[in-house]
């Protein structure tokens, strides 16, 4: 409970609590509020910015015992469950009833839905199903003073006053502890098609994205990209994972020469997925799309998954990159939003910056359909100040210059609290500070996270705490 998934952040708490009911959470928070004891709400502990582990000796409030599914309406597709349910468990439950969860991410086997909400998790299907701010219909949360806030409605439309549940989505456990969730699930698609493509350059990747949006339109459900170096990581460090487009045969040698360090940094790989209600219709659209991208040369090679086993193997490559990097050693992770045409420029700049350090590699991959780049720098010899200084604040400054976001979906946590100012104005941060003080006057929930300390910002007006 004290250490994060990447092994980068470590606290020294000596107390962990596992409540099994909202009532218990309420009692815990009321007590901690009274005694001024700091807490860290913790879900699956799969966060990537050190937000789910203690910094010092904060009490760990682990939600894994609150894992009951409360109800599922098969007509409306609304799922109501406790915050400690694991995403994959929920996916399996609704899948048996003809639905899918509106989000999907690599950590699904461990992450909690409460944590997903707290971080406003994006994931692989945001392109199609939108963000949690839209798909979450209701929330039950406990305020820092122990008050239970019941906003757990299953209504698609409810314009009655301020939409308070939005305060808890994305605030990373700093304004309250989410204890239950009502979420809108989507009908399970009758037809899921998956294409894995190889493109000669990043310009080609953007061409393919344009084609995908035009030709696949309403059935498009995911567009991901990964560079050559990411593919190399996945195939080298994950057992049983291979490049679907590397054929063993007489063409292989020729392919090896064409690929790898091509002048435009290629090849780049893309995963394009469609979800729809009619297989024949979807396949026809997909064929049109594939013919177009092959005709104009933006796709050099590719494959269409012919079975679910092949589809799973293709997704494993993309979803496994994060894990492969952790296996290799220390990772500096940057999750950035910026104009799509700028995305790979940053990767190349960073690659140049770290070129002189032995074993250090920069890889780029991510949700190119959402303008979200995952830039990772892998250092097998461990975390080092020298490397960190080469990367930060360079990456944040460069991103700010593009008017981008220094955290597209991972959140702020501990890692990015000092650099929040690169993406939000001081007026905005000031208002966030005031909201925090209003809701958590004794600052007991997840201190040191999300908001920069007072010394980083200008004057913050505090209300009387009682």
């Amino acid at each position, binding site marked *: 409970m004290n250490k994060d998934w990447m092994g980068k952040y470590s606290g020294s708490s000596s107390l962990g609590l596992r409540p099994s009911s909202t009532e218990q959470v309420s009692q815990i928070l009321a007590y901690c509020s009274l005694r001024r004891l700091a807490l860290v709400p913790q879900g699956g502990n799969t966060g990537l910015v050190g937000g789910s582990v203690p910094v010092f000796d904060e009490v760990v409030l682990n939600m894994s015992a609150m894992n009951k599914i409360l109800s599922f309406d098969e007509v409306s597709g609304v799922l109501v469950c406790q915050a400690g349910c694991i995403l994959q468990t929920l996916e399996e439950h609704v899948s048996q009833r003809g639905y899918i969860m509106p989000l999907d991410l690599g950590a699904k086997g461990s992450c909690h839905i409460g944590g997903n909400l707290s971080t406003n998790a994006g994931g692989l299907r945001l392109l199609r199903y939108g963000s949690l701010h839209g798909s979450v219909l209701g929330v039950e949360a406990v305020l820092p003073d122990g008050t239970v806030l019941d906003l757990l409605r299953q209504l698609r439309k409810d314009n009655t006053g301020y939409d308070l549940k939005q305060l808890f989505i994305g605030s990373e456990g700093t304004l309250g502890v989410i204890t239950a969730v009502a979420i809108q699930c989507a009908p399970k698609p009758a037809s899921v098609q998956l294409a894995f493509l190889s493109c000669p350059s990043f310009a080609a990747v953007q061409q393919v994205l344009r084609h995908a949006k035009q030709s696949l339109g309403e059935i498009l459900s995911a567009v991901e990209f990964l560079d050559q170096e990411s593919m190399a990581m996945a195939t080298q460090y994950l057992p049983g994972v291979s490049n*679907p*487009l590397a054929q063993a045969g007489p063409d292989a040698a020729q392919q090896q020469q064409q690929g790898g360090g091509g002048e435009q940094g290629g090849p780049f790989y893309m995963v394009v997925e469609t979800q729809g209600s009619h297989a024949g219709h979807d396949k026809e659209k997909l064929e049109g799309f594939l013919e177009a991208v092959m005709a104009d040369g933006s796709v050099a*090679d590719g*494959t269409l998954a012919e079975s679910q086993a092949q589809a799973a193997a293709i997704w494993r490559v993309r979803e496994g990159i994060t894990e492969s990097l952790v296996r290799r050693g220390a990772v500096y992770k940057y999750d950035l939003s910026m104009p799509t045409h700028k995305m790979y420029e940053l990767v190349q700049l960073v690659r140049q910056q770290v070129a002189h350090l032995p074993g250090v590699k920069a890889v780029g991959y991510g949700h190119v359909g959402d303008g979200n780049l995952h830039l990772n720098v892998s250092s097998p010899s461990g975390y080092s100040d020298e490397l960190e200084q080469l990367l930060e604040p360079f990456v944040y400054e460069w991103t700010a210059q593009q008017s981008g976001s220094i955290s597209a979906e991972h959140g702020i946590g501990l890692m990015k609290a000092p650099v929040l100012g690169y993406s939000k104005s001081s007026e905005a941060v000031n208002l966030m500070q005031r909201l925090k003080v209003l809701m958590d006057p004794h600052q007991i929930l997840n201190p040191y996270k999300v908001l920069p300390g007072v010394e980083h910002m200008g004057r913050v007006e505090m209300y009387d705490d009682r």
Partner: protein
Amino acid sequence: MSKVLVAVKRVIDYNARVRIKPDKSGVDLTNVKMSMNPFCEIAVEEALRLRESKAVDEVVAVSLGPQQVQETLRTALAMGADRAIHVSTEQQLEPLAVAKLLAALARREQPLLCLLGKQAIDGDNNQTGQMLAGLLSWPQATFASKVELDKAAGSAKVTREVDGGLETLSCQLPAVITTDLRLNEPRYATLPNIMKAKKKSIAKLTPQELGVDVTQQLVTLQVEEPAQRKGGVVLGSVAQLVEKLHKEAKVI
């Protein structure tokens, strides 16, 4: 021109969840993903490797059934098969009927080798390859985990997976070989090949043209789910275990 004839079957995707129809007459196929039988995929891959190593010249894929099996033939063509044959029938086909149809095709095409998956994941019969060899009076090597063709000698050396381990057989060609899981890892069909496959020909034949009677000889009485697995119980002592074995399981 030496050929290898590969039979492929369209079945429910290996990863799809299977439901029984409420009237228990069979499996519910509505909106279920269908794919090529995994063992047939392995057979196609092996055939392609034999052609790539120049042991044979042509790979011919064949599938039997209604119009939709052409999807599976397109997949075989996309993987690299040279041409395909669709034996068209709406009749539900049993392993013996399939074997008779394939035998008739083999007599027409005169292949060096018939490659089949060891069994289909829907029927799990594991009979067709064996019956085909019997009908043709050809040697058979089933559950192959390794195949080596000696063109000059006109024979094949096949390593088979059997319960006790591995058995290596040598048989004269033409022969029937059925594939097991560890024979190879099937390739992905690449886009250029998928596009090319659309233009490749699928010849259509009927059982009547092949002179085979495919009337069903078996009647399915009922299809039902396997009994639900009852939860286990953690016991506190050996005495409790003995009591349960005696009173509940009634085995002592």
